[in-house]
């Protein structure tokens, strides 16, 4: 498990510096040491969004095609690279593909005053 920085709230796990995730980029994390990234963070139109790495089409299916590769080439959609479902990066709503109308699982996060990104452990 990642170490919690001094000053961080107990029960929260540090992922990275928030500014390491640039516009149109995504990154996966495994805060509970499950051996596979359980969540991913994307930055879209300036804002960060964190989602469970679990496609609603097949419960629990991992979505990237390569480590950290959760987005289409333009960085405008989250894509499940199992059967191509496409999701809005900000709402997690599936807009094309086999689970259209369903949503990704939302992950709560905070960015502290030092710009560090934390999720609930």
């Amino acid at each position, binding site marked *: 498990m990642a170490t919690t920085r001094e000053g961080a709230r107990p029960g929260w796990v540090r992922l990275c510096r928030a500014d390491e995730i640039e516009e149109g980029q995504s990154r996966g994390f495994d805060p509970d040491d499950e*051996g*596979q990234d359980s969540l991913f963070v994307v930055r879209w139109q300036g804002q960060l969004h964190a989602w469970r790495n679990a496609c609603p*089409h*097949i*419960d*629990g*299916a*991992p*979505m*990237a*095609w*390569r*480590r950290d*590769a959760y987005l*289409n*080439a*333009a960085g405008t959609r989250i*894509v*499940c*690279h*199992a*059967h*191509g479902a*496409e999701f809005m990066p900000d709402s997690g709503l599936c807009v*094309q*593909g*086999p*689970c*259209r109308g369903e949503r990704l699982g939302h992950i709560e996060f905070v960015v502290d005053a030092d710009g560090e990104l934390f999720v609930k452990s």
Partner: protein
Amino acid sequence: MKIVGLESLVFAVDDVRSAARFLVDYGLTPVDVSDRGGRFEAMDGTAVVIARQDDPALPPGPTPGCRLRKTVMGVADEATLGAIAAELRRDREVRRLPDGSIESIDDCGFVIGFQVTARRPFVLPSEISNAPGGVVFRPVNSLGVPPPGSVIRPRSLSHVVYFVPDVMKAEAFYVNRLGFRCTDRFTGTGPFLQPAGSLDHHTHFLIGAPPHMHGVEHFTFHFGGPSEMITNGYRFVEKGYQAFWGPGRHILGSNWFWYFNSPFGCHIEMDADMDQHDASWQPREATASADNSQTFLLKMRRKWYPGPGIPENGDYA
């Protein structure tokens, strides 16, 4: 009709460079690749072809979300090509392309092509298991586990799996119009299909699914044996690619499998040691659940690869 199997699959991609790297890391050999796309060949010359999704030369897919734009099948000779053209012209357009191949569309919206096969024959021993009392053994002092650094390459394009909205109509097209045989079947899901010029358990598998899933579940190449295929899969995982299901062994077809996510809007598989059947084979029917579509894969997972330590939803590790 002597269709010998798949010759190539053509995909529309949104990032040629990433897709090219993916296919090379899978083990395919790039041929004539540029920033507009290219061809990635197995040992016998069968291939995946990629092109930029805005390439006007790409045929349309069955649905906007489907990146597979064409399935090209190889046939034994010109006579077969002519016979297929004549058969399909009875009720649809068949175009002859400058390269001598023909192009048309199947009954579920997939563009199909046929060409005289350009498969390059080769001889390379497949994996052999040593066993007491056995007849065929590996040469003494040769190793069963591929040594680190050994080159592993896919041998031949194996099969493609379509999600189709009307599985009976789709099956009727391949069986009645193109001479495929059903080798085995999942009740309520769909048939495994073998063309007349191949002994492979299947080159096509059809899964009945709702219209919004219309597209491709996966495609795969044959490897030289399970040890080689699984070694290749572990190397692929180490390069950062995402495994989805496997490694394991199917019951129908007996092929070893490992599925991965891909940038092609479908899974890519590695497979090895598929059963071969001739016309004397009686198709089996395995009962899947009555519901098809989205829950089907979950059920298929539990059904197809039961075993200790596999979580209920499958093995994603």
